[in-house]
């Protein structure tokens, strides 16, 4: 479904992506691991159009989306959530979801491309509110929500139209440790996994182990390991360069 070929990106002297090659199919759940600055978020940002790569190409469902603006890519069914929740702060929870739905559902042509429509798998706002246990917050202004709830709403907004590819940037960061599985369960519950692929960036290896069937390990802008989660986690280079650091972090 998603083919990434020879993707490269540098910021000045820093190499954020070096010759990345990834193929992703439907019905897979993929974790991205790596220390801070290893290139995980840059990878997400390039797929979703926030950054355009220096070279290389990205195809989604055989359509070249390299360097296209986010709205174009979104319209192909690639939705994402953010590490720092990106909400409409002056609106209520319900309005946030309503407006997300109305944008996604409207048939505004993007750059004259009429084909680029979302194949809607309608979830109603109510359903989403219930599934994410947001109903009690539905009339609260987004800026007043607790951080964990903001995170949930952010993810819910990405999910409302039933994406074909869902990218989550640290879905459980800033969430209380006891809630993290709850959140992941909710997400998995909503996504129709048979037609959707999920990629998420995560530091928490328990989550990675529990929810992913494939993992990409990033180090210095390169993918140093790609495969079944178990294998990747036991890969020596991953142990040294990724897990070594993260385990140290968790000790601190």
């Amino acid at each position: 479904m998603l083919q990434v070929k020879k993707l490269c990106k540098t910021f000045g002297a820093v190499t954020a992506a070096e010759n990345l090659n990834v193929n992703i199919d439907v019905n897979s759940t993929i974790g991205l691991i790596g220390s801070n600055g290893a290139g995980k978020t840059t990878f997400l940002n390039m797929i979703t159009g926030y950054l355009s790569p220096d070279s290389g190409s990205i195809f989604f469902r055989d359509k070249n989306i390299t360097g296209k603006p986010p709205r174009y890519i979104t319209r192909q069914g690639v939705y994402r959530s953010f590490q720092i929740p990106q909400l409409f702060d002056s609106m209520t929870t319900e309005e946030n979801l309503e407006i997300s739905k109305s944008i996604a559902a409207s048939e505004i042509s993007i750059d004259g491309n009429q084909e680029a429509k979302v194949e809607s798998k309608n979830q109603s706002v109510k359903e989403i509110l219930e599934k994410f246990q947001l109903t009690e917050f539905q009339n609260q202004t987004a800026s007043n929500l607790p951080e964990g709830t903001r995170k949930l709403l952010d993810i819910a907004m990405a999910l409302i139209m039933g994406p074909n590819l869902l990218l989550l940037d640290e879905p459980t960061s800033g969430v209380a440790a006891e809630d993290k599985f709850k959140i992941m369960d909710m997400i998995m519950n909503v996504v129709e996994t048979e037609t959707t692929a999920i990629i998420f960036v995560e530091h928490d290896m328990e989550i990675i182990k529990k929810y992913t069937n494939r993992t990409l390990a990033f180090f210095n802008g390169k993918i140093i390991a790609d495969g079944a989660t178990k294998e990747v986690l036991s890969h020596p280079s991953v142990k040294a360069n990724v897990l070594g650091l993260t385990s140290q972090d968790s000790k601190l």
Partner: protein
Amino acid sequence: MPDKTLTFTSIAALTLVISGGVLPQWAIFLVTVSLCYGTVVLGMILLARTGLVSFGHGLYYCLGAYSAGTSKLFWGISDLIFMLLTAIILTATISFALGFLLRKYRSIFFAMLSLAFSMILYGLLSKSSYLGSTDGFNVTTQTIFGYDFLDSGYARYIIFLITTFTAWLCCFLMHLYLKSNKGRLADAVKDNELRVEYLGASAAKIIHTNYVISAVLAGLGGALMAISIGHIDPEMSYWTTSGEFVFITIMAGTSSVLAPFFGSMLFTTVRSFAYEYSPDTWQLLLGTTMLIIIIFLPDGLWSLFTRKKKHRSV
């Protein structure tokens, strides 16, 4: 379910039309001028809801006024409706073109670039002796739908009616627009443009659309002003004129389509009286008012009317 704002708008417009028959002439004139300002500010509100403040909306205000004013000169027609139409067409065309550029800008840069454009127009008009340079020229509106109303003795009242009707219509349509899915995107863009993009909509396009709408409203306001004042000059494009619109926008608040009309009514009244009773210190008064409103009523005067509701809901 009838919409409260729409009902109220219509009642207010009707009351105005009826009271126009009894009000003294000077009050009618003051209200007409306020409604013209209000129409411009209505557009500014749409921009403000989109998160943008233009320090150069005088550009369209002035263009509207000049296209209405020159229709006699260029087309030989001095029909009120025709004048309004030319204003709409001209401002829509120019704002559509400039919009491609301005939609890339936000915040101060948007404010400054629009200021630059309005000052360029000011420069051009000041240079053109053909259009009276900085002195401008007088505008005569002879007919409406072909009916010669100028010498009927009701000229002022008819202009007042047309202005009220236009203001009401704009108010009505704007309210519906703001309620619609497309209109609500304005708030969304203001809140979080990035998210809007990641939901698949183009923030630039939304801004462009709203920019054109607000420009047309400014043009309409300018044309109506030209018709009711009877004189136009390049000062309408000077940055201080735009500053006044910004002032009213901030003073009135952006939460309701009625706020701009309320705001400009208050503004013209207070200015008129301040001018008279303290001609030496009216700027001091204006500045102080503005500061007080910004400090104590950040959402504008209109929030006085809506505050209660908010308390209830929280």
